[in-house]
């Protein structure tokens, strides 16, 4: 479930990146690569688990599924927070700088 949610997040981010390419004003490429990196790692984890458990891997207990669902959404939220932090630090369109400068002018 975590793998599926992360993979869907990676696909959506890739579509958004492709729509804006070759420009990358929101640095969505970072988000794409992060989610794809995690998806590939979980895919390997899934394959190893499948080799150990067999078909049972595809029939998890409902409670495990619910836990994985929460984990998947938490992972996506954390990925988005990580991306926001990078975006605000890099500030490619100087939006934060503009807001701070305008705030400074208003306070005077």
């Amino acid at each position, binding site marked *: 479930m975590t793998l599926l949610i992360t993979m869907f997040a990676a696909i959506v981010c890739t579509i958004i990146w492709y729509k804006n390419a070759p420009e990358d004003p929101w640095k969505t490429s970072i988000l794409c*690569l*992060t*989610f794809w*990196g995690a998806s*590939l*790692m979980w895919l390997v984890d899934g394959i190893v688990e499948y080799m150990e458990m067999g078909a049972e891997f595809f029939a998890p207990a409902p409670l495990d599924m619910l836990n994985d669902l929460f*984990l998947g959404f938490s992972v996506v939220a954390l*990925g988005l927070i*990580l991306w926001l932090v990078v975006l605000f630090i890099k500030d490619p369109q100087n939006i934060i700088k503009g807001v701070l400068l305008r705030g400074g002018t208003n306070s005077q």
Partner: protein
Amino acid sequence: MACFIVPVTEAVVVTIVDRVIQKMDKNLDTVEAKEEKQEGKIMPEGKSYIRKKLRWLSTMLWGGSFLLAFEHVWHGEVTPWFPFLTAASNPADKAEMLYEMSTSGVAMAVFVTTIWGVMVLVSRVLERKAVKIMLDVK
């Protein structure tokens, strides 16, 4: 248990290589760089081309292992206190952890690197095709 440590280690190595290339790029004087370009030792776009591609790998490795580490925290396999990895506290779990690192961890690092290699190869082919089309048009 701690499979994410292997991709993290690779990410550290890739980041160091990236920094070394960045330093080399700055140190290269223009005459030397021109000679290298003429001899075909470096691509026309310079070493920054290699760095750009390395960034893909390092972002995938850092980002992926960060999210994977979070999963381990979620499952209680990583703790914020010593020894940080719960499996490291007893020898039996430690052996299992090392086994998992050498199988799943290595497989993860190799798989991500392979996919990155394919991405670089495909982008190189596409870039060359684009350049060829542009030259044909001219």
